[in-house]
């Protein structure tokens, strides 16, 4: 089947109608996940019980497919009488799951800073908390920029799944179009290209941040 350029070009604006929602969803999900991850991290460091809860939560979220979480939220909320829109259900699911991944990234980053740095701080006479804030944390932040970038790309891609709970983002638009037209290959190629552009811009942004803050090791 020949690839028809005109159809390819004409599908782009229709797909871009969903771009706004894709972008808003992506940005909100990334920011809220970063924040939720901090909360989870703090509870991991807060004490035995809160650590246990956090770990169980993280393992549940890491081992469940995102679409199952979304169905749970979307259909579940409908049945109990507080129906969440697909957007909210999708956003909630993305944050709940990716917050767990992000918390693990934070934790690994902190652990990756050598114990010897802590010792050097303590030996100077810093209290443990200040040693953490002044010496460990700045080093950890530099280490986590790259993994957080990878996670961000995953979030952007996962926003496509909210199409299955009727959110009018790009993939949803593509599907609508595909159900009406025969030019499916052109449509989805265009869609794929838009996603590649999006993730590439994001990757570039991450690399700029990395260069600015000097990644260690």
């Amino acid at each position, binding site marked *: 089947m020949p690839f028809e350029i005109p159809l390819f070009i004409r599908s782009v604006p229709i797909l871009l109608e969903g771009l706004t929602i894709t972008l808003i969803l992506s940005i909100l999900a990334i920011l809220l996940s970063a924040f939720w991850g901090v909360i989870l991290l703090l509870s991991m460091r807060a004490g035995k019980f809160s650590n246990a809860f956090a770990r169980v939560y993280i393992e549940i979220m890491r081992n469940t497919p995102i679409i199952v979480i979304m169905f749970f939220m979307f259909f579940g909320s409908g049945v109990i009488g507080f129906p969440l829109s697909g957007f909210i259900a999708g956003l909630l699911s993305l944050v709940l799951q990716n917050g767990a991944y992000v918390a693990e990234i934070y934790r690994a980053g902190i652990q990756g800073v050598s114990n*010897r*740095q802590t*010792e*050097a701080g*303590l*030996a*100077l*006479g*810093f*209290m*443990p908390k*200040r040693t953490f804030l*002044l*010496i460990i944390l*700045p*080093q950890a932040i*530099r280490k986590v920029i790259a993994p957080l970038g990878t996670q961000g790309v995953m979030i952007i891609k996962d926003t496509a799944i909210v199409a299955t709970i009727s959110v009018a983002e790009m993939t949803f638009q593509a599907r609508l179009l595909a159900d009406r037209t025969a030019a499916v290959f052109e449509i989805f190629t265009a869609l794929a290209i838009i996603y590649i552009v999006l993730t590439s811009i994001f990757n570039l942004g991450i690399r700029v941040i990395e260069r600015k803050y*000097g990644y*260690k090791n």
Partner: protein
Amino acid sequence: MSIKSDLVPEIEINNISKWFGDTKVLDCVSLSVTKGEALAVIGPSGSGKTTLLRCINFLEDFQEGTIKINGEYIGYKHTTTEKNYRKRQHERDIALMRTKVGMVFQSFNLFPHMTVLKNITLGLTKILKQSVSEANETAHQLLNRVGLAGKANMLPASLSGGQQQRVAVARALAMKPKAMLFDEVTSALDPELVAEVLDVIRELIAEGMTMIIVTHEMSFARAFSHRVAFMAEGKVLELDVPEKIFENPQNPRLISFLERFHKGYQI
């Protein structure tokens, strides 16, 4: 000199015992270092010498005994009321006591994300609450003293091992400690870089800094320390002036330890 400084040792280790699980790594160790004394600690790996050093600034906990620095307890306060006759200090007091001893580590442990200058001034500004200009001046003076005058704004990664270690010494000295603890500070250095660090330590000894040096550099210990302690299996087996230790050792384990160094090395 007041009478106090003659009677009260700068570092006083009283019957320290430490277990790691079932292994006893320090066995009832007692040691005193007077003001201005440079004590070298030698011994085979696993003898507990590094552990002992780390107990002095309480980087390691110990199950029995007490330690005093300049007459004040660190880690545990002696008391007649508590079960073990000692009571653990608050974090804040421990941190305060740590400012009174400076430690230099085998792997330098400089803060990689800060410049050389910042490494030295961090403790001054954040703990001693000095002004930035005051701290910077102290830091520059110290850098001069260790021979690294122009390196203030460089990052540790761009310095050689010997230079990094000298920065580490400056960082510890900045806090104006009562005593210095050197934990095998040349063991991780290339041989040609060892001398520059030992030179700095030698000058400190000449200036009268109280210190404990855990080391494998036998010729240095022989030439410049005031007393040498030989440790093995968590105990101090012999403690004497360098001449006696190296030329007329008594303890059999010390004799065999030194023999291993004699082969091919000049003492």
